């Protein structure tokens, strides 16, 4: 194998890309677009939840409670209704996420002393938002309750600390201090975009040759299968690295995602990931000349696992055991571990030796398989 | 006028700044086989596609089967058949399935469908192989099948765009027998071709070069086009050297290699019979034969167009 032949093919490939505006579009515009789109759109945080209230008490106290909801950043107290049916209809129609029902004896019971309950109907269609909404609503009510108790204690002449909860929780959040879902989703988007770009570009390159019949031309020269493969994929590898840099740049510069690790680790991991992604895209398009079929298989094998089983949006440790086992086979999982660790934890090569090793292994396997598959089709 | 199946008047087609068809006018008479000749990129396919209603002309009048193509394209399409240069039937369907599809699309009456499909199968020579996937058939059969699909609805006019390119000579001949058979039945056939031997089969020929109509007439008429001079056939080996010598010889209007001899055009045949051998001898070559010949279509072509078709 000579490098001269490989670089000749690489140069040709680069010319193709430069002259084909759509390839360029995919290569440069797509990553940025996806980063912006997902960076802004991919958020699991619950904000501005629409709240309807049915205040059957109508006292100053109940109003004060509703005011707390109004003032909260998580809730938008949209409307108050005077009939339960209206409340139910609002939840049914999706106009309200949370519907509060204040009982008619709310303030009376509080004056008399004791516990009174406020019902919160929650649209649990979206279970995640429902969980978060419940937690936030409970927090609002708890604060209100505490303030009520302090007032009461002062009026009764009892010490303040009698109201204090026996136990307080000191929370330390590590790595993602501001608890923004964006901070862990955006690094994952890098992996997703790489997978997308890699799959698209590498499948394009082979299909193009077969289409134009130039593949046969290439094969009739003394060039070897490995040289063709390397030559074809090298430019896309370079483009992939540029894309990764773009994505990371957008993530840090635009979205303010913290970056606490070393660039070197990121580069090594990204390089390995690209090898795997490009190799697989290449192998698929070589094995399956039918374009629609190849693209479906590509999605099945690359994008879907990256989306679902890599820890991108769904936490792997919460999945059922058999699925968790499958995720060990998904290469994107290791890349995502590394990404999140590099961005948020500041981990270095040492701690990440495990995932890096796994990726290196993958890269080696994919490289061999792809070359062999390619050789077969040329014979 | 009523006898004209196709009327083209001052047809112009521009793609941006590029003029593909430059004020072409001609008529095709009913029942005739008109051949369209021209080098690559001359505009033949463009003209055919305009006639079929697949492209809109930039200006000019086009009438097919008595109907204006730009105003009533669908009515026109019901009266024509078309076989394109690139084979365009479905590779992943069988011959029968393709035929049934086009029978339906052309609105062939139900009662007649079975018969016409059977006819198409037989004419294409595919009897016994109707259920094979078209993708598995060789080129010649595919084209005959395409022709069959194009005439299921018995159109009075047929447009064929280089239907035999890439097809073996035997299949080409069979294809042309089909065309003649159809023409004998009164179908007007408009065919563009690359092959000059096929051109001889046509009633009339139209020569197109760079979007312009360069010549129009029967093969015989074209062959007797004043070429400006007489054509001589000169045998002298090696041809390459002989060509070089003759090109430098004064009084030689044109010289070209034609098979195993040279065709040389001269103003005065009588004089040339002496001067040419002497010029060759001066170049160290021996002329083994020299005689005046009647020009072939290819000669006419080269003269008019400047290149081989």
């Amino acid at each position, binding site marked *: 194998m000579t490098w001269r032949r490989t670089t000749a093919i690489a140069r040709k490939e680069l010319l193709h890309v430069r002259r084909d505006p*759509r390839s360029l579009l995919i290569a440069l515009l797509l990553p940025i677009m996806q980063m912006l*789109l997902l960076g802004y759109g991919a*958020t699991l945080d*619950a904000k*501005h*939840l629409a709240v309807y209230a049915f205040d059957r008490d109508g006292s100053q106290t109940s109003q004060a409670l509703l005011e707390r909801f109004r003032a909260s950043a998580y809730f938008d107290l949209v409307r108050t209704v005077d009939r339960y049916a209206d409340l139910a*209809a609002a939840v*049914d129609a*999706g106009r309200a*996420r949370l519907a509060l029902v204040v009982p008619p004896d709310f303030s009376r*019971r509080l*004056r008399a*002393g*004791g*516990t009174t*309950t*406020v019902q*919160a109907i929650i649209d*649990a*269609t979206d*279970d995640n*938002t*429902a969980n978060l909404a*419940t937690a936030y609503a*409970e927090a609002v*009510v708890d604060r*209100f*309750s505490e303030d009520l*108790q302090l007032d*009461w204690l002062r009026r009764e002449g009892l010490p303040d*600390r*009698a109201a204090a*909860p*026996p*136990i*307080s*929780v*000191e929370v330390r959040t*590590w790595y993602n201090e501001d608890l923004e*879902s964006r901070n*862990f989703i955006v690094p994952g988007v890098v992996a997703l975009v790489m997978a997308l770009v890699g799959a698209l570009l590498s499948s394009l390159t082979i299909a193009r040759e077969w289409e134009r019949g130039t593949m046969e031309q290439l094969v009739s020269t003394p060039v070897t299968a490995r040289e063709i493969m390397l030559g074809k994929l090298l430019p896309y590898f370079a483009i992939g690295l540029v894309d990764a840099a773009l994505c990371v740049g957008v993530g840090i510069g635009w979205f303010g995602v913290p970056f606490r690790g070393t660039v070197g680790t990121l580069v090594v991991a990204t390089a390995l990931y690209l090898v795997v992604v490009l190799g697989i895209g290449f192998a698929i398009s070589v094995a399956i000349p039918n*374009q629609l*079929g190849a*693209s*479906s*298989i590509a999605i*099945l094998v690359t994008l879907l696992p990256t989306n679902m089983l890599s820890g991108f949006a769904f936490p792997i440790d*919460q999945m059922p055991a058999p699925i968790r086992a499958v995720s060990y086979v998904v290469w994107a999982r290791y890349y995502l571990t590394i990404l999140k660790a590099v961005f948020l934890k500041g981990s270095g090569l040492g701690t990440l030796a495990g995932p890096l090793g796994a990726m290196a292994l993958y890269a080696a396997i994919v490289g061999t398989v792809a070359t062999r598959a390619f050789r077969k089709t040329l014979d | 006028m009523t006898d004209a199946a196709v009327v083209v008047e001052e047809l112009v087609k521009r793609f941006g700044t590029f003029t593909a068809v430059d004020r072409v006018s001609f008529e095709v008479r009913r029942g005739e086989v008109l051949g369209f000749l021209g080098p690559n990129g001359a505009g033949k396919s463009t003209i055919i596609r305009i006639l*079929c209603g*697949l492209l809109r002309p930039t200006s000019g009048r086009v009438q097919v089967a008595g109907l204006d193509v730009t105003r009533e394209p*669908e009515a026109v399409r*019901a009266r024509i058949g078309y076989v394109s240069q*690139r084979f365009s039937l479905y590779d*992943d*369907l069988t011959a029968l*399935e393709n035929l049934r*599809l086009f029978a339906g*699309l*052309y*609105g062939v009456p139900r009662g007649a469908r079975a018969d016409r499909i059977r006819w198409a199968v037989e004419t294409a020579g595919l009897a016994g192989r109707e259920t094979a996937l078209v993708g598995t058939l060789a080129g010649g059969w595919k084209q005959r099948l395409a022709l069959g699909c194009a005439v299921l609805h018995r159109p009075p006019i047929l447009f064929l765009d280089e239907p035999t390119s890439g097809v073996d000579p035997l299949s080409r001949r069979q294809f042309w027998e089909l065309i003649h058979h159809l023409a004998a039945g009164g179908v007007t056939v408009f065919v563009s071709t690359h092959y000059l031997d096929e051109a001889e089969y046509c009633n009339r020929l139209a020569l197109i070069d760079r979007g312009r109509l360069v010549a129009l007439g029967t093969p015989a008429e074209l062959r007797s086009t004043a070429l400006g001079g007489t054509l001589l056939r000169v045998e002298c080996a090696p041809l390459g050297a002989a060509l070089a010598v003759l090109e430098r010889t004064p009084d030689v209007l044109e010289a070209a290699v034609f098979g195993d001899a040279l065709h040389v055009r001269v103003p005065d045949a009588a004089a040339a019979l002496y001067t040419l051998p002497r010029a060759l001898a001066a170049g160290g070559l021996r002329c083994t034969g020299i005689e005046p010949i009647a020009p072939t279509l290819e000669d006419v072509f080269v003269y008019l167009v400047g290149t081989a078709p």
Partner: protein
Amino acid sequence: MVGRIVPLVVKELLQLRRDRYALVRLVVLVLVQLFMFGYAATFEVHRVATAVLDRDQSQESRELLSRFTASGRFEVTAVAGDVRELTRLVDTGQATVAVQIHPGFAARLRKGDTAPVQVIVDSTNSNTALVALGYVSRIVDAFAEDYATDRVARSAPARLRRIPRVVLAPRPWYNPSLESRWYFVPGVIGSLMLVITVNLTAFAVVREREIGTLEQIMVTPIRPVEFVLGKTLPSFLIGLGEMVLITLVGTLWFRVPFRGDPVVLLLGSSLFLTSTLGMGLLISTLCRTQQQAFASSFFVLMPAFVLSGFSFPIASMPPVLQWITYAIPLRYFLVVLRSTFLKGVGLRVLWPEMLAMAAIGVTMVAVSALRFRKSLE
């Protein structure tokens, strides 16, 4: 007109039957994705790897820590010996939550002072962190309340028993056990229908253009609108088929409830499909080759997918993006799907979504049909 559409539809179906990868694309891929979303897609938090450090070693501290395990949501995987070990466990990712009880915990409780409990949370995944923290506070609150009740009962003045308190009683509707699956499976119907039908339509037309058969068809008396119908009708039928397939698997295998009216679902699906088919057609008018069609459909489908509210709630997106989602048909169809499956509401509630989909659908089809006509010349 029908006479020309029928042979086209027949042709499409014949070709589909012969396409070796059709089965993969239309069935295998669908089922795999469905199973992935049914099993892997979860925002539920039910096994949090927890490490504990009890530096008080009192009855109270042990009681509190045991409540964590008893909740069924926290899995105490390690008991640390000192603070350094505790932090190391979080650092290396072996524990997501670390609970530390300081020495003197029980003493402070008995004195009536507030006793602090330290909780370290690996908030890399902020979503699970937030939910986990919610559970932590619930556990701690419950313990505190039980303790306080005891204390008040034993020692405090009678007056304190009358201290007021407000408590929130959550009533989750439609999905009382808060299963992520119930949220995703109906959604999968919409997203898969979108991807499959857009690709099918776009590729179908572009392929004809690419191999040249489009010309052969166009030279027949067929009208552009008939051709469009002939091409989109099979995709429409396939789209409905996918809907039925996923609904069946979703309800029978995953036991997602279906509380609404099947007719409403059918209507919503049909309206949704007109917009996806229109989109596919539009893409086909812009592309010459299948490669381009593939890339273009990605450009269109990715944002449509992300912004539709499929996994990320629209209400949490910045206003600009929220405005854009009004133009995405999947947004409305997801509402129809989730409402029909989980809420059991009908047209009286869903008519705005139906109207929106109809409007978008008609516009898409009209625009693309016009463009298609032009592209033929």
